[in-house]
């Protein structure tokens, strides 16, 4: 779960991490009032979960409160990479000596957390990473003992700091690590991490991504996790509420299957034969009739879907349960879109019989079914 910058910073503040003074605004007038309160010059930043808001114009500056109100109004009317801007963060403009990049990531390949840092932080860090990867330093952390003081010091040293500044940076990195542990974050990233003219280190920007699998032990995020915010479409939100792994896509062939890998392969195969999938929908292993019926209703309720491909390879899932789910949809609300059903595995004879009885033929081969659904003429 991605947190907004203002959420990430509020976690950081609780741990004593320096963040710029400021406040959150939902209206241009609120933005102006925050500027009045903190004085000086401010930066106004769109609160979105997608990356790249700076290049999209989602960060502006205000020298006077009225200007800040106008700039905030512009940003609050923006949509950045499909995400509506609903809030802006208004913060004091820092006296920047240097922009660093500091991040603690879940390192999948090394099965540990790794610190990534650079003394060339800022908006172009991705270019730096691509063109001069040697400028990003990697420091692996022990998976059990985590970041020791000397780990953080070594990173600070490599970034070119000494004396009091080295100690300040070491403290900040240690606190960012602490944040990653306390909140089970798979990513804590500050870019830029600013060294100010008066020798402080401040997280000018902060991004935190919480490990979804750890949410059960974080009651503090329970409400937040329910909100369908940012990158989740209304259809995805509805599907996920019903326990489905669901991703909306922009094609017209609805897809439902069991198992993430199989469903991914189904999308690929539909694409391969020239069709365009409308969604990824995994009903999971051992799905019962009710679960299947819910999934099917969500998919057929999507306006852009012209036909539906149900691909079941039953192991712990049973084909007769899947078939019953389809029959239930037919009885209760009706089948609104043509269906192609591929079934193989546990109880497939029974599943086939049930579906044949309501006039649906089933196929056994995935390739054959994919070709059929792609070639199908739709009104």
């Amino acid at each position: 779960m991605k947190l907004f910058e203002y959420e990430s910073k509020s976690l950081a503040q609780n741990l004593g991490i320096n963040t710029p003074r400021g406040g959150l605004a939902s209206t241009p007038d609120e933005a102006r009032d925050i500027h009045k309160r903190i004085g000086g010059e401010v930066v106004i930043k769109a609160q979105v979960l997608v990356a790249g808001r700076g290049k999209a114009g989602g960060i502006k500056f205000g020298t006077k409160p009225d200007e800040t109100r106008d700039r905030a109004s512009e940003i609050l009317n923006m949509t950045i990479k499909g995400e509506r801007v609903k809030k802006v963060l208004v913060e004091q403009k820092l006296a920047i000596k240097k922009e660093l990049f500091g991040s603690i990531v879940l390192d999948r390949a090394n099965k540990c957390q790794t610190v990534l840092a650079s003394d060339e932080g800022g908006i172009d860090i991705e270019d730096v990473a691509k063109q001069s990867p040697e400028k990003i330093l990697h420091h692996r952390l022990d998976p059990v003992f985590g970041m020791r003081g000397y780990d953080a010091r070594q990173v600070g040293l490599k970034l070119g700091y000494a004396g009091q500044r080295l100690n300040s940076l070491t403290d900040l990195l240690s606190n960012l690590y602490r944040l990653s542990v306390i909140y089970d974050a798979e990513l804590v990233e500050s870019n830029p991490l600013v060294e100010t003219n008066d020798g402080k280190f401040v997280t000018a920007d902060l991004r935190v991504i919480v490990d979804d699998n750890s949410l059960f032990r974080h009651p503090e995020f329970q409400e937040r996790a329910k909100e369908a915010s940012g990158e989740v479409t209304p259809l995805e939100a509805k599907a996920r509420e019903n326990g489905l792994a669901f991703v909306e896509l922009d094609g017209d062939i609805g897809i439902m299957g069991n198992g993430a890998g199989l469903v991914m392969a189904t999308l690929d195969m539909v694409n391969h034969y020239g069709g365009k999938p409308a969604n990824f929908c995994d009903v999971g292993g051992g799905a019962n009739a009710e679960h299947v019926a819910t999934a099917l209703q969500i998919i057929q309720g999507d306006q852009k879907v012209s036909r539906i491909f149900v691909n079941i390879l039953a192991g712990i899932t049973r084909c007769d349960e899947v078939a019953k789910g389809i029959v239930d949809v037919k009885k209760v609300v009706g089948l609104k879109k043509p269906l192609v059903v591929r079934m193989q595995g546990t109880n497939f004879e029974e599943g086939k019989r049930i579906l044949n009885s309501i006039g649906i033929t089933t196929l056994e081969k995935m390739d054959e079914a994919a070709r059929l659904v792609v070639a199908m003429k739709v009104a």
Partner: protein
Amino acid sequence: MTLLVGKHTRAIVQGITGNQGAFHTRLMLDYGTQIVAGVTPGKGATVSQGVPVFDTVASALEKIDANATIIFVPAPFAKEAGMEAIDAGLNPVVIITEMIPARDSMILMAYAKEHGATIVGPNTPGVITPGEAKLGIMPGDVFSPGGVGVASRSGTLTYEIASYLTHAGIGQSTCLGIGGDPVTGLSFVDVLKMFREDKSTNAVVLIGEIGGSAEEDAANYIAETHYPKPVAAYVAGRAAPPGKRMGHAGAIITGTEGTADAKMKRFSEVGVLVAEVPSELPRLLQQQKAALVQH
């Protein structure tokens, strides 16, 4: 020789009294696997599926001789269940549980490494040596004994591909899921090393998906070691958009990293036979005579 599991396997089921644990214990027994004990805290001295149940792994081993375990316990308790098995010397440790926090997996993998234990998973369908034994939730009937080793990041897709191989008369030596999570025990590289040494494996199939770098690491290993056995691969998720998690916790393209196209390209560069669709795999293997030698 049989990799990881076989006729010699005497396994414990941790979480044997839960729905999934009980159901799959029955199917593993039916397949011929020796399931010798179960563990569920608070259910000691009972019997499930004809198997004696204990409160801890250590107390089970006081009474019964076992050498492997399969874990079905819920995610919040999976890390400790794994450590309990490692402390008791069980190896391999197969973890079916999904949705384990990445931090827990990270710590568990470090513990396993320190103790020399092999972990399969988490979030895996398990391991099967067709015709001998299975420690997993895969349907046994789609597999057949033979010479192709299969390693995968997915469950159902593995069954799909195993059934293509079986229908084409290509049997399998061992099939295993490395797991769909970001942090797993065995990696593709670890499995390639095992298949390299395994005399009953003549060729390897890797079933990858988007996210992470397990496929790229495997490709690099194949190139660096001039891998002596033919390798064929399929990578799921070409149609997946960036930034979206496709069902598995680990199946996510971050930035421009982890795309299916990049993984397929890297595999091709090192001489791996890459299938456009899963059903092409048998044909790709049939081009390699070695794959068809039955043991």
